[in-house]
């Protein structure tokens, strides 16, 4: 539903119908990584494993290159893509750091200092003007 008010939130993909429809096979691929034997099969031959899921070329490339934000833009949901991160041995906190473009320690330090403040992060306008 374009025109929804949540589209004005910066740096955020709301996992609505549109995103969910677009990301279905990408997310179902990630879901399959819940099982240890699938994690092994994927790591052994990523391209062959991905052939099982009819995702778009863009989605496939985002997976292969671990472009985490691009996966989200193309309909991935964080609770699904985090299973790919788990397969790579990346924790949820480090995954978050990567998506923000910060280095791991700087992100951790930001969190310990109270996290990213809401001021200046409420609307896309905040970011454009910031």
């Amino acid at each position, binding site marked *: 539903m374009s025109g929804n008010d949540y589209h004005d939130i910066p740096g*955020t993909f709301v996992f609505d119908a549109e995103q969910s429809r677009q990301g279905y096979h990408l997310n179902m691929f990630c879901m399959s990584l819940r099982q240890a034997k699938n994690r092994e099969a994927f790591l052994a031959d990523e391209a062959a494993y991905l052939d099982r899921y009819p995702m778009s070329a863009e989605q496939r490339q985002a997976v292969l290159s671990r472009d985490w934000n691009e996966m989200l833009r193309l309909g991935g949901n964080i609770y699904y893509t985090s299973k790919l991160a788990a397969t790579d041995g990346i924790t949820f906190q480090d995954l978050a750091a990567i998506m923000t473009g910060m280095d791991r320690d700087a992100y951790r330090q930001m969190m310990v200092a109270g996290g990213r403040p809401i001021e200046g992060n409420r609307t896309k306008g905040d970011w454009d003007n910031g």
Partner: protein
Amino acid sequence: MAKIVGGYATSHVPAIGVAIDQGKTEEPYWQPVFSGYEWSRKWIEELKPDVAFVVYNDHATAFSLELIPTFALGCAAEYQPADEGWGARPVPTVHGHPELAWHIAQSVILDEFDITIVNDMEVDHGLTVPLSLAFGQPHAWPCAVIPLAVNVVQYPPPTGNRCLQFGKAIRKAIESFPHDMRVVVFGTGGMSHQLQAQRAGLINPEFDQKFLDLLVHDPAAAAAIPHVDYLRDAGSEGIELVMWLVMRGALGDNVTELHRHYHVPASNTAVGHLVLEPK
């Protein structure tokens, strides 16, 4: 008759589970998180509930995009802790209470809540982390558990108002169960956090504290918060807070706040914890 004797709200951050499982709770990073749960550990130990009714969300574990129930009520005899990609948590099997759960299911459906009954389900950190916080690391959980999985992953989740009303229907259902039984209702998830994309790490303590105040004293006002406010002001994953409204609805009109704890951070998340008693 069965009776609701307490409300227990808490964040269910997966990293909290990891810290417990790996014995890190005394480390300087974690100590301030866990110290806020000491009071409630004793409280629930003395309360000795028969059943924990746990409102939580599944994080692409038991449910995927193949099937997305808004409210899934567990009526099974047991639930295994799930492997979410990092291996299963080393915690006991969760034992259900089929008789009470089915009673609640029948009651709320006739009260026009369109739930999904589930008899075969694994449970993820959303359910097991709160149990660990409340009960520590026992060989077996000290009470039966009835899981209620709420969709908050696929937009839209149920409205805050719907969650509050559902809690009231659950209260009515529990109070009409014809056996003596003491039930604690858990509301889990939240507080402010965003796990995804460029805005990850968002924390909004003002929103969180205001939400806690409203939840205690003016649940109808808390229930009126629109989804977009959670998404914008509490982070895209902060919308998990609607689940606390189910717990609040189940506690009745007036409650006493027995305990509150708030700390930033645990991993990417603000940690909130509240213990309520029905008046």
